[in-house]
């Protein structure tokens, strides 16, 4: 099943209220995705924690095998 980019964006924005997320399919194959996220919750957090927060938001789609790789870009 191909990843639903709109759903992933909604999952990130729901987990991090006030966040703006863009999810891009980098290879066109639906499994190597890139998320660009700006979120108020990132304030004062280390990069790794910011990435953990984004991954946690979409963990369900990793666990069910929908996505295999997600590159995260935190926007300041």
């Amino acid at each position, binding site marked *: 099943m191909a990843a639903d980019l709109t759903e992933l964006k909604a999952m990130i924005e729901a987990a991090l209220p006030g966040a703006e997320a863009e999810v891009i399919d980098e290879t066109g194959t639906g499994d190597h995705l890139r998320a660009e996220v700006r979120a108020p919750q990132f304030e004062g957090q*280390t*990069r*790794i924690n910011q*990435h*953990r927060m984004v991954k946690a938001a979409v963990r369900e789609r990793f666990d069910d095998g929908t996505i295999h790789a997600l*590159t*995260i870009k935190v926007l300041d």
Partner: protein
Amino acid sequence: MADQDLTERVQELISENPVLLFMKGTPAAPRCGFSMRTVQVLDQMGIEYGAIDVLPALQPLREVTTEISDWETFPQLYVNGELLGGADIVEEMFASGDLAKALGVEQPELPDQPEQPQSAQDLPAQSPPLKIEGSG
């Protein structure tokens, strides 16, 4: 659940090595592009670091790091006992100078950096404000 003996061993290694890289392959022969990129960054920092090849025990180690660091992909760079990140974060922190700060070293001069401005005259934004003598 992760193997408890292996978990303890990994935690020991992380606490014993101020800079420790879990990677696929070795620094001399990385076996994954992300691990290679991380090694390339570390090699520019002029520091000693420990490196562990995860390939012989990939799945057990993945379970261990998921448990202790909430992170399941490799490479993983630990600095002073904390997971700093994988290749993307390490490269980004290198570019921003935050990696040098985390490691407590000077940011290295890179021969292949984008060209620097030719002279101080090209840096008005970084110049101090002009002082106007005799005003006020």
